[in-house]
């Protein structure tokens, strides 16, 4: 899973967009006070990209479903109607009911909440770990850098999904353990990226100037280096979220993700894939939910990358 995201990130296949020199100059270097206009420009470019707008709408719908799940969904996710077991989609149950009489629509809506909260929260934690760690390694260099990078190398040797499976099979399923597995396997890319960024930026003139003026390392990193490394970090975070959604779905599919009866799309697909011929709605709707979510985030991520860094388009 890591593989695809990585390649997607490196590879730009969208037609080049004409950008004038002023925008380029702005994207290249962020000055305090001008940041707002960089983001405004990026926002404008994003809204011109049709696929990105489609992705944005998809993500907004998803967030809406996740936040207001208890208001929108017609039934609680664990409510069982024993008179309507395994029924086809109907007016009463638009997406049908599952094998124990739960409304599939409600479960798919609540699935958005699980999927999003797991991926967003673990991404935030990853951000809080990986960026300081990468910045420290890149700025300090020496043995700190060695240590961090050897650790990254060791983790890279094992495919991340296998590692996540191993951790979940050790800790047992449950949403807390899921966070641990996702964080342990998810910090690599961002750490490496931040380190590489810091490494290239720390010898720039403006950083030297700040150092000469007497700024301490923390201030230099936070005020001068990180703002200029923000673009790739934002892009990596945007692409990291669908990776985490995928990982959660994959683990739940195998049966070592969240604990039932908490609804997870991956788990619904995994549990119901064997009834595809007799009761197609059980697996197809959660599958469609995963597919649309992944596509929305990918479109949005591609759009954000192109909008923030027009030079990469060429």
């Amino acid at each position: 899973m890591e593989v695809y995201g990585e390649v997607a990130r490196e590879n730009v296949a969208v037609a080049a967009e004409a950008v004038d020199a002023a925008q380029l100059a702005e994207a290249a270097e962020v000055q305090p006070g001008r940041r707002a206009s960089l983001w405004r420009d990026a926002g404008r470019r994003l809204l011109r990209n049709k696929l990105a707008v489609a992705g944005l709408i998809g993500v907004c719908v998803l967030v809406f479903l996740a936040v207001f799940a208890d208001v929108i969904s017609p039934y609680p996710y664990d409510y069982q109607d024993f008179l309507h077991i395994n029924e086809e989609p109907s007016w009463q149950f638009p997406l049908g009911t599952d094998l124990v009489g739960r409304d599939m629509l409600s479960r798919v809506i609540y699935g958005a909440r699980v999927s999003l909260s797991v991926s967003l929260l673990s991404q935030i934690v990853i951000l809080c770990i990986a960026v300081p760690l990468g910045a420290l390694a890149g700025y300090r260099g020496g043995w700190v850098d060695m240590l961090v990078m050897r650790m990254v190398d060791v983790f890279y040797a094992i495919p991340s999904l296998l590692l996540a499976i191993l951790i979940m099979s050790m800790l047992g399923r449950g949403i807390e353990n899921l966070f641990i597995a996702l964080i342990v396997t998810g910090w690599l890319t961002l750490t490496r990226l931040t380190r590489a960024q810091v490494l290239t930026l720390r010898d720039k003139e403006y950083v030297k100037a700040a150092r000469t003026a007497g700024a301490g390392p923390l201030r230099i990193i936070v005020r001068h280096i990180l703002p200029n490394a923000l673009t790739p970090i934002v892009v990596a975070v945007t692409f990291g979220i669908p990776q985490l959604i995928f990982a959660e779905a994959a683990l739940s599919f195998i049966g070592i993700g969240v604990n039932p009866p908490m609804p997870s799309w991956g788990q619904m697909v995994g549990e119901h894939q064997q009834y595809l011929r007799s009761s197609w709605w059980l697996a197809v709707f959660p599958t469609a939910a995963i597919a649309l979510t992944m596509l929305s985030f990918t479109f949005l991520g591609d759009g954000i990358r192109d909008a923030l860094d027009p030079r990469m388009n060429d």
Partner: protein
Amino acid sequence: MLRYAIERLIVMVPTVFVLALVLFVLMRLTPGSPLQPNAANANPLSPEQQELLAKEWGLDRPILEQFVVYLDKAAHLDFGTSYYFKTRTVMEVLPPFIPVSLHLGLMALALAIVVGGLLGVVAAMNQNGPIDYLCTFVAMLGVSLPNFVVAILMIWVFVLILRVVPMTGGWQTPADWILPTITLSLGPLAVIARYVRSSMIDVIRSDYVRTARAKGLAERRVVLVHVLKNALIPPLTILGPIIAAVLTGSPFVEIIFRVPGVGRYFVESILARDYPVMMAIFLFYGIFLQVMNLVVDLAYGVADPRIRFGGAD
């Protein structure tokens, strides 16, 4: 070249060793030892009998010593007895699954390389044309959709709605091979298509291709001799990660299409907490990946003489 290969092989040893050590320690740390008289659901044997058993199985020794014993036996392909099939050893249970997975993986890989490569080449030749957009679209789908999602949609659309592929399951007839192979290949196919396309475009814009055109070579000759030969080398580097993707993707495809391969058995062993089998399969995957990465790197050197191995030459 030979020296480089040997060096890489030597570096692999500590990597695999660390992998095995980590796996072993993690599995031993997992709760659920047979010898915890005070644990919930503990076995009903008396403490003295448990001590006897521990001595018999070597579980009273320090964990590092246990690891050395395990490693020694694993080196002789003895991975112990399956916890689930209690009367059979891992080496009796596991081998029949391997050829099936290998078969599926190789077919998917071949399909991904051939179709993905062709798609990338054709897309680059018709930049911003309809085929190019098709390529971008397929690549987008393949990159962003998890393969179990693709698998379900494949069955739903092609078997249940359109009925163009017979209802299958298992791995007996070639009809059983169609959908699993396509599903497993879609992700790698997309990655290859994208890589080949961008590599092609790089080469098409290069000076030597302009020179070839300028001296009046036929378009076909320019493409076949000058462009293709150089453009197909960089994509070789992603074959390593792609093999890993095919490998780790196979459990999902094997589960959904009822293919009796290693991936499916791996998941079953996880759910059954069959630690000896899990350990063996993890090691197998780890070593396999290391070897494949080495093979890919060496192949890269053979394909592109500009790449030199080792620092001294």
